[in-house]
């Protein structure tokens, strides 16, 4: 259950951000972006989050999850292109001198707080 430890890391990050902003919550929504090659399975992340969020500042918060494509950058021909799966060579020119430029991250983009009275 890989996403359980990721959900823990996410909640810890939210707690740090709230502390930094001098806010107490409650949190209404977390905006996330899951990269295509991040190894994070969104439904499992939601499941893990619902399991461990009760009793924390994010209890009851909604997860708004966007998907980000994976992007391969070639140092040979300079092509920058979207890929569906892991590749070992540039789909354009075949060079192995590539880097996966995007799509490996799980990004916490923003935290939306409940309007306090």
């Amino acid at each position, binding site marked *: 259950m*890989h996403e359980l430890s990721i959900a823990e890391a996410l909640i810890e990050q939210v707690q740090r*951000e709230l502390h930094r902003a001098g806010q107490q919550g409650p949190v209404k929504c977390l905006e996330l972006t899951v990269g295509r090659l991040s190894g994070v399975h969104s439904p499992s992340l939601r499941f893990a989050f619902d399991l461990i969020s009760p009793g924390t500042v994010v209890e009851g918060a909604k997860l708004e999850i966007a998907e980000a494509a994976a992007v391969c950058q070639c140092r040979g021909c300079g092509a920058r292109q979207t890929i569906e799966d892991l590749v*070992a060579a540039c789909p354009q020119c075949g060079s*192995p001198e590539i880097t996966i430029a995007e799509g490996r991250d799980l990004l916490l*983009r923003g935290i939306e707080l409940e309007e306090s009275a």
Partner: protein
Amino acid sequence: MRIVVAKNILKANDQLAAANRARFETAGVYAVNVVGSPGCGKTTLLEAVFRRLAGRLRPAVIEGDIAGSIDAERIEALGIPVVQINTDGACHLDAMMIASAVGELDLGAVDLLAIENVGNLVCTAGFDLGEHLRLVLLGVTEGDDKVVKYPAIFQGSDALVLTKTDLVAHTNFRVERIAADLRRLAPKAPVFQVSALGGEGIAPLVEWLLAKLPRTGG
């Protein structure tokens, strides 16, 4: 009210892994992350490698398991320092677990640190531990389609060790197929064929490993 964050949650592990790597380098320790399915022969391979290495350098082991200390006891029986991590259900080791386990070892007395990961071909792929080298093991009884089915773990590894090759005649495993699939994903990774119980194929793997170590190799 909205707080803008833009932080990569998975980065925390990468930063800790980088800190682990720096700590290893300062202490002159070469770290190897050993990954593969449950039962592929990770501990048996380590035992065979250590027997072969005997006296040539000072190894230590971190054993990652969901529960128990069976593997750690096997390593201990060889007289090698070992720390057992129990992940309490987690399917992989992460850099934080390694950072705390390393505190149990006298790094000054270690040249080669083998980290035996939890048996898993999926989740272990996503977590850098701070190792210098990742070895992925595959038993020939697991089937020759595994590189295609679990690309991430193979792509990120520095070598593939095929284990239990003495059994290959009893299976439909094709070494050429796995080697060809690996070439597409990890063109630089060599393939070693071993049968660790009998010790076959261990010597070339050990020589390759020694050549990677800054103290004994290039």
